[in-house]
């Protein structure tokens, strides 16, 4: 048992931190500071502990339903980091919107715990529960501006669709259980190696349903409809968390689920082809939807919702490459990490605009920013360049790896399409820069102003984006060494 505690230490610390945070907020009900500080401390300790243990060997515990490995540790550390950044960066926004409550931190911590366990789950049931642990706070946080009907709407849409998809996932799990007699990943894998027929319809349907559930979570078109609406309605820091933390956790899980059966086993060739075709078509649709619709958007949060849909498309390229023998999943991981650094900065920057009614940040708010706030313009530009995949930002290298691995596996036509989509969506990223630099401020444009911590978070993110854009060695070197599937 001691070993288990040792292995699970970061998670346990996080769990304990949740209780501590609850406790301090109960003790001092009128102030949200104690909860905030407690949450920060919890996240820092969790992050440090997971980083410290990062090189320990992977270990399956609880009858194989959980596996703690370098990947899960680094993901937990990443989630903690995202949590810290949004606690710091969202502070001012929450105050501004009059929703600064201790509950925010409780929910955030529980969400992170759920995500942290979800990426470690090796059992469909644990996965489902963890998914719900992550999702229930997410639904709530999306509706955190309780008096705003848009926020309500976002939460309810998220909840209804998420709930239905949760049931779909569960049905898929049941089918897989029915087909294989187990919900544990290793057993399912083992079963697939022994099944010479290359699966059966029950397994196929189950596998497909669980994949669809996570395709919904990562908003691969045509399962993306929830995303723009929820992004727009949710409070901006929550949108940021959805776009970074939940997206990363969901995509990593999706990769795991796609690799549930041993696709390279003999007899599974047809099945593997079917999976590839599915992923490929969804990648194409996601890229097209993401990049074609993004150029019509005027609201920044919606814009970045479509952006994340097309990012999903690029990620699916990496996923597709990983289905070929001998190809690792590192491009996907690196893409996710690179995306997170830019996205955190962007969403925190978005919180810096003063509220203007209930519409969030519109493109018009950016007009003439270079005159009003040149430094902020520079930050915006760098982050947007990274989103567009321009050189000398991390966004370039992430796309680079995904494209390279796809070309290497013979998916060149798909890469060409992806490249053209990148061009189209580059317009959407460039237009805000154009508005900031080339236009005079519109009379209706919002004021901009952020507190120290908010600006600090953005600067950190920009530094990360540029540093990793120039010197991606460390990140690439480390993430390349991580196997996703044991």
């Amino acid at each position, binding site marked *: 048992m001691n070993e288990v505690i040792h292995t699970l230490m970061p998670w346990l610390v996080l769990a304990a931190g949740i209780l501590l945070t609850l406790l301090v907020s109960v003790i001092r009900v009128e102030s949200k500071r104690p909860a905030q500080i407690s949450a920060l401390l919890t996240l820092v300790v969790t992050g440090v502990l997971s980083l410290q243990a990062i090189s320990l060997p992977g270990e399956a515990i609880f009858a194989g339903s959980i596996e703690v490995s370098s990947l899960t540790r680094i993901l937990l550390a990443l989630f903690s980091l995202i949590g810290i950044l949004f606690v710091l960066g969202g502070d001012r926004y929450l105050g501004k919107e009059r929703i600064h409550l201790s509950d925010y931190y409780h929910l955030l911590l529980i969400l992170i715990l759920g995500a942290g366990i979800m990426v470690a789950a090796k059992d469909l049931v644990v996965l489902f*529960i963890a998914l719900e642990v992550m999702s229930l706070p997410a639904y709530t946080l999306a509706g955190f501006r309780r008096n705003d009907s848009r926020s*309500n709407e976002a939460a309810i*849409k998220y*909840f209804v669709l998420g709930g*239905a998809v949760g*049931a779909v996932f569960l049905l898929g*799990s*049941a089918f897989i259980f*029915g087909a294989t007699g187990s919900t544990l990943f290793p057993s399912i894998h083992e079963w697939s190696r022994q099944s010479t027929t290359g699966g059966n319809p029950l397994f196929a349907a189950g596998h497909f349903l669980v994949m669809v559930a996570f395709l919904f979570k990562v908003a691969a078109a045509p399962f993306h409809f929830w995303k723009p609406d*929820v992004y727009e309605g949710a409070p901006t820091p929550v949108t940021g968390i959805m776009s970074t933390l939940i997206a990363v956790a969901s995509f990593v899980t999706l990769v795991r689920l796609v690799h549930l059966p041993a696709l390279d086993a003999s007899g599974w060739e047809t099945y593997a082809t079917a999976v590839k075709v599915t992923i490929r078509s969804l990648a194409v649709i996601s890229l097209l939807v993401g990049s074609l619709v993004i150029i019509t958007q005027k609201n920044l949060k919606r814009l970045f919702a479509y952006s994340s849909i097309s990012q999903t498309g690029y990620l699916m390229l990496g996923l597709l490459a990983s289905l070929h023998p001998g190809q690792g999943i590192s491009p996907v991981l690196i893409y996710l990490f690179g995306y997170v650094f830019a996205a955190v900065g962007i969403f925190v920057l978005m919180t810096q605009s003063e509220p203007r009614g209930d519409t969030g940040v519109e493109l018009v708010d950016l007009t003439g920013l270079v005159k009003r706030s040149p430094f902020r313009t520079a930050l915006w530009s760098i982050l947007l360049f990274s989103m567009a995949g321009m050189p000398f930002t991390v966004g370039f290298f992430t796309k680079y790896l995904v494209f390279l691995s796809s070309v290497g596996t013979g998916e060149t036509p798909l890469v060409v399409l992806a490249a053209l989509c990148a061009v189209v969506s580059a317009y959407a990223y460039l237009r805000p820069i154009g508005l900031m630099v080339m236009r005079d401020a519109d009379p209706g444009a919002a004021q901009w102003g952020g507190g120290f911590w908010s600006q600090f978070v953005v600067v950190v993110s920009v530094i990360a984006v540029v540093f990793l854009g120039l010197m991606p060695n460390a990140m690439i070197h480390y993430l390349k060494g991580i196997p996703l599937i044991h």
Partner: protein
Amino acid sequence: MTAFEPWMLLVVSVLVFCVGLLGLILRKNLLVMLMSIELMLNAVNLCFVTFSKMHHLLDGHLTVLFVMTVAAAESAVGLGLVIAMFRNLRSVDSDQIQLLRD
């Protein structure tokens, strides 16, 4: 007339699941929509138990316990959201929440 066999329950479970899904698509009353989700989860439970029976395993039963918990938690949160919405809009009709679009 054939004897009862467990797989027949699978068909029932799939049918109930689909009815739940249909309810979710057709109804605009959020309370009924939440009930439809409950239907779907119940159908899956039946599925798990049936497969357990067929496999001579108990894992399905255990899973059902957790799913029930999840269902309870989910309805609690769902109903909380509905109440929050009702406060703002005085309605539980999801047609009222189509502000976010395009």
